């Protein structure tokens, strides 16, 4: 054979073998959001690259889909278009809706195939996270990263105002008192606010949940996705606190302050205390020039917050190979090692208890006590609110809270209006479930 011909043959064979090998790898797509500051998208892509190297028979593509809300929209659109992603990191409180609409796989068969019972499988995650992942008798999601709200405060400002930074406000009374001392006024305007909370959609609802729960409230019915308790004393109290901070004590800015603006203000020293997610912890730790510390969300009646964060779900409509590949990816991402790494990188706490047994994590916690605070608050954490049509029901409240923040509504009428709107939104579901009576 001539040299040219043999070279051509070799090339053809290589090509054939190469493409054959490539076609053996199962291709899957994973949608993921980035809801907090930091280089999360880049880091996720790096993680997936590592996964692909370690699993040559799978080719996972990470698709960055914006915020939690946007990821929800994109996933829905993809499912409707018949091209569901193999896995999605979905905001933990949206999982219920997907189950109600029969759009995701129950994971029990896959758990069983791995030789574990459902209880054993869930046992490796913190108890506070179970409510959003396992309900209606089945496992629907695997927790990926979770957070709670934290009170971040500027230690330098505390010292300046004569407050003891090692004793951050633990009750609402102490909180308001500290805020008043920390607010710096200059004539008619305010140079520095004592408190700031994020007022944009999704964040605001989450913070309100924490405040309502700290006021003894349940916020929603965790056993039935058709009931919320907006028009209740616990929420009225929480909303009135916020209203007072803005309009009576004047320690919080009026109107809606976007989460980004809150963190910018905290960096710039224009806010002394902020309620933000633990997810921003690493970002703040790396970039904050002034001294800061973190504390539990102040309580009125009890310490209680809602968890935040996201879990991995598997949409329906996948082939068997895709399901298996997706399950491998999901378990890899939620294993102790990766879970711990992601937690240290972001500030989210690792849902997998095993992550905290690993030496890297123990060392990290020892060096960074602020990371421990979120973990400690976990014992007071409850599930994130999830109902039929969660986003709309959430916005029904948020719109009213925003109106209160802007001075357009009083808390009493706001909670009533929010309740009415939420009930209206959930009516189709309620009429087919709780209100469906035998003929």
């Amino acid at each position: 054979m001539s040299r040219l011909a043999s070279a051509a043959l070799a090339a053809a064979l290589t090509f054939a073998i190469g493409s054959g090998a490539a076609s053996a790898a199962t291709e899957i797509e994973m949608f993921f959001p980035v809801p907090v500051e930091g280089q999360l998208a880049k880091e996720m892509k790096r993680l997936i690259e590592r996964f692909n190297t370690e699993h040559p028979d799978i080719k996972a593509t990470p698709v960055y889909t914006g915020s939690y809300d946007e990821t929800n929209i994109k996933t829905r659109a993809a499912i409707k278009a018949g091209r569901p992603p193999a896995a999605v990191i979905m905001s933990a409180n949206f999982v219920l809706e997907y189950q109600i609409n029969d759009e995701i796989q129950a994971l029990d068969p896959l758990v069983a195939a791995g030789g574990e019972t459902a209880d054993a499988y869930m046992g490796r995650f913190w108890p506070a996270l179970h409510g959003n992942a396992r309900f209606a008798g089945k496992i629907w999601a695997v927790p990926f990263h979770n957070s709670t709200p934290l009170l971040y405060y500027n230690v330098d400002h505390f010292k300046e105002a004569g407050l003891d930074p090692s004793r951050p406000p633990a009750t609402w009374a102490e909180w308001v008192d500290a805020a008043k001392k920390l607010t710096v006024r200059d004539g008619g305007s305010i140079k520095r606010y004592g408190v700031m909370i994020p007022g944009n959609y999704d964040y605001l609802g989450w913070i309100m949940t924490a405040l309502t729960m700290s006021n003894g409230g349940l916020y929603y019915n965790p056993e039935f996705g058709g009931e919320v308790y907006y028009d209740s004393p616990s929420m009225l109290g929480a909303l009135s606190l916020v209203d007072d901070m803005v309009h009576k004590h004047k320690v919080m800015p009026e109107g809606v302050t976007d989460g980004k603006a809150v963190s910018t203000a905290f960096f710039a020293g224009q806010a002394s205390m902020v309620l933000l997610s633990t997810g921003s912890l690493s970002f703040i730790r790396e970039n904050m020039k002034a001294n800061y510390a973190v504390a539990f969300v102040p309580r009125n009646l009890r310490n209680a917050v809602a968890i935040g964060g996201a879990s991995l779900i598997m949409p329906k409509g996948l082939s068997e190979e895709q399901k298996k590949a997706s399950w491998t990816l999901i378990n890899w991402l939620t294993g102790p090692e990766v879970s711990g790494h992601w937690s240290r990188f972001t500030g989210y706490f690792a849902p997998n208890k095993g992550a905290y047994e690993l030496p890297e994590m123990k060392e990290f916690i020892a060096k960074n006590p602020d990371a421990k605070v979120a973990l400690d608050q976990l014992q007071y954490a409850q599930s994130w609110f999830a109902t039929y049509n969660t986003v709309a029901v959430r916005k029904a409240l948020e719109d009213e809270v925003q109106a209160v923040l802007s001075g357009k509504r009083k808390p009493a009428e706001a909670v009533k209006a929010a309740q009415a709107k939420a009930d209206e939104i959930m009516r189709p579901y309620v009429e087919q479930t709780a209100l469906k009576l035998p003929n």
Partner: protein
Amino acid sequence: MVTMRRASPAALLGIAAVSAVVLVWSTPLLWMAIAAFRPQNFGGLDMAALWPDFTPTLANFAEALDSADFALLYLNTVVVCLGTLAVQLATVTLSGYAFARLRFPGKEWVFYGFLLQLMLVPPILIVPNLITITRLGLYDSLLGIMAPYFASAFGVFLMRQTFRTIPKDFEEAAIVDGASWWQLVWRVLVPLARPGMVAFGIVSVVSHWNEFLWPLMVISSPDNQTLTIGLASFTRGAESASQWGVIAAGTFLVAAPLLTAFALFQRQFVNSFLFSGVK
């Protein structure tokens, strides 16, 4: 066209007013240009300062380029804009000619039927259009973004105008010379209608370059994203929250080529509108 005008006080006032407006107009872009090169300063209160009193850095650009594959985003957007335009030119020229020169029953009503599309832009009809695109197998493809725009009522309107302004003598002369109908269109009318086509081309490219909502719904893979989607993810994702320098750099990367192109070809842009019959 240089006109000699004496600098009357009214004229000077006018110039001052216009200059003031333009100065204010340019501040966001000026800030973008400066902030893109400013070193990141978390907690810096002077982020909005327009005076470049710092040592410029390319770190923001490096980070922006790292966060999104701008080259690919650019390529996709160019493909979408030029691809759409190519098909549009074909459809609108043919239809524009039909409305301008041919007579047929119900012409006025068919024309109004076309104009319906001016208001019924794809984003309004998102849900059914998404279903159609999916059924055609075009979901998550660049072609899926382009398809609903292949017929353009605006273009037909513009081309009809353009053809109307071409005196019939050209056509009659060509017919006398024995030209077939096809040669008439291709050799005579299209060259004469070029300004109109250029004007339409500019409008079309500008509008598709800017498009966001529709591509957002159609595309899901990162490989097929256009500039707008890539930039939106990049700035909205709290990924770069508080990193305004990086956001400025990213926006700069998106805007710069276009701005340069316009600055160089400004005269052609304006002239093409003049001759398109839009007076």
